[in-house]
């Protein structure tokens, strides 16, 4: 079980790999769309990689609710 800090850093690595955003800029309060400029196609890739990395399921309707990096970290923490 990863703690929130570990989840954040793991998620940041995925975001950097998929979208080229420096992992250091992937902070909890950042919005995927508005702040990080990540499109819906990249969000699908990020979700699939996060599922594999943290052993969670992220259904599409849930993915749409994950507006910020912090939302995603909280969801993963609760469901891993």
């Amino acid at each position, binding site marked *: 079980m990863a703690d929130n800090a570990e989840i954040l850093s793991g998620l940041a690595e995925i975001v950097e790999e*998929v*979208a*080229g955003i420096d992992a250091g800029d992937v902070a909890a309060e950042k919005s995927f769309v508005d702040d990080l400029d990540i499109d819906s*196609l990249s969000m*699908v*890739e990020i979700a*699939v990689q996060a*599922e594999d990395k943290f052993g969670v399921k992220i259904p599409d309707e849930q993915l749409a609710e994950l507006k910020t990096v912090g939302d995603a970290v909280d969801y993963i923490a609760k469901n891993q």
Partner: protein
Amino acid sequence: MTGAPVEVVVTGYGATTPLGGDAASTWEALLAGKSGVGTTQGAFTERFDLPVKISAQLAVEPTDVIARVQARRMDRCEQVAVVAAREAWAHAGLDGDEPKVEPERLAVCVGTGIGGAVTLLDQDDLLEGGGVRKVSPLTVPMLMPNGPAAVVSLELGARAGTHAPVSACASGAEALAWAYRLLQDGDADVVIAGGAEACITGITVAGFVQSRTLSQRNDDPERASRPFDTDRDGFVLGEGAGILVLERAEFARARGATIHGRLAGYGLTSDGYHITGPDPSGAGQSRAMLKAVKTAGLEPSDITHVNCHATSTVAGDVGEAAAVRKALGDQPVLTAPKSALGHLVGAAGAVESLVTMLSIRDGIVPATLNLENLDPGVSLDVVRGEPRKMDIDAAMNNSFGFGGHNASVVFTKV
């Protein structure tokens, strides 16, 4: 001289080919008589026991030029289109912070023969291995044949229309013809036009092998592509992209652009004869050449140089030479750049049109490599040995494709 109401000029160009990562290095290598053909590098050559082990692969990997995150969203054929388009855009002086052309007056015509075959194969492997979750959400935009045109349009912000002619090995030349029409019709001031291809992989090589069209001279790759030579045994598959910036002359002059050449006319016809073989009468090819001459406002005797499609197949080369003679007469001096570049399929017509235009501009025609014994069926003068200096007012590029597509374009001196 131009027969059309709107004068269409070339103000910039770019390329990435087996001879070089840009247009200048490609042109220099062509004039130096270098070959871009070698033993194929890639895992598929070991995975399948293919009888053809040679190809003309890129001199510079597109992923060395394009940022990683942008590159991973594009198929290889889209990557080469972007590399060539960026070069052409900057070469035409259209880059910089201030827009030189309104996006609504900027169009794109970039063709391909095959499109994203590599993506289709890679993603199919992922589907087989890991199921639907492993398949990239970018699969369709990466494999679609309008992908190269679309990524160029995105890169440059073109909003006057984005088009993707798909006519096999004629695609690159047909893209120039479409661009010419767009400019004639007043739909754009500037068109980014050309072709892109990057499909050297197991299934394409196997498919061409089974259609008996590839050279099997594995032990001597640089001598495998030998258009018009009596010992030719097929073409060599290549990859790359070529892009021309075509522009209304009035617009180009007003912005002070350097003009490198004029696209004076085009002819497009179809054989309606056979899915792969050209009509042996050459009628469709001759008609394309004559239409190109006519739209250029010229006479057939004005064409003194033809940059041939000539791929190094047994049937194709002699047929084309006969069709040239029938349409244009005995005066054109021929060359066959596929002897050095290999066959770039959907990019061939664009890269070779660029070569044609540079031959006019610089007054020099590159030699056809490996032409040791001219096929007795060819009665025209083919440049071989050394490049030939000659003053050219009007020259033609021919590109023909599986499906019976014939595309001829005429360039003239400015």
